């Protein structure tokens, strides 16, 4: 997995590419810690380039959300697709991570 970080004013965006699992979860946690340490207003985790996410990936996504909440920083995952969308949905964490349907602003208007 590779992570590209984009700092855009108050929003820090982590764009994930590849596969999030037991092996790559640490890299994600490090990047989340670093991003939150810089205290943006919002942390957005872009899942569009993620091709795989199992339950250990879901665990680190939920942990990131928790850590952000404790630091008072808004958190949002967005644009999961394919098997990642399916895994988040069937485990019931999709809305928690991505928000209610319609609140995923950047997908609402255009292509997902």
């Amino acid at each position: 997995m590779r992570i590209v970080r984009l700092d855009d004013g108050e929003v820090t965006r982590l764009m994930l590419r590849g596969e999030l699992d037991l092996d790559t979860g640490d890299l994600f946690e490090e990047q989340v810690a670093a991003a939150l340490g810089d205290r943006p207003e919002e942390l957005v985790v872009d899942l569009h380039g993620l091709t795989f996410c199992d339950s250990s990936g879901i665990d680190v996504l939920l942990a990131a959300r928790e850590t952000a909440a404790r630091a008072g920083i808004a958190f949002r995952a967005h644009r999961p697709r394919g098997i990642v969308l399916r895994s988040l949905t069937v485990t019931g964490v999709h809305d928690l991570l991505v928000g209610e349907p319609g609140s995923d602003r950047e997908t609402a208007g255009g292509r997902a």
Partner: protein
Amino acid sequence: MSELTAHLDVPLDRGAPAAARRAVTAVLGGWGFRNADWLDAAAVVVSELVTNAVRHGGGCVALHLEAHDERVIVSVADGSSVVPRRRDPDGDGGRGIALIEALAESWTVENYRGGKRVLVELAPCPRGSAS
């Protein structure tokens, strides 16, 4: 195709789930299972089984695949005799078996060489390679 099998020893490390996923999808693709969504779901199941073996199991891990016509069973054996149990999900996990139950047909546990193996029957593979 009538009955096909594959077996694979998996060293216990953090790269094991990814290696097992790649091997299994290559094998299943070679056996004619080409539906992309179905292969993705199979990869999740394999990843959960191997991740659990790495985290909670012990000893050597062996992965087994068998296809009887359309029926595909994947199993992962580890050296621990502790039986996995679905638990309430929390901040530390507990979603692996839930994910297997959601994506596959059924799962079961057998004693195996002093440890156990967890067998999962995958959902039937839709025909065709499109998703």
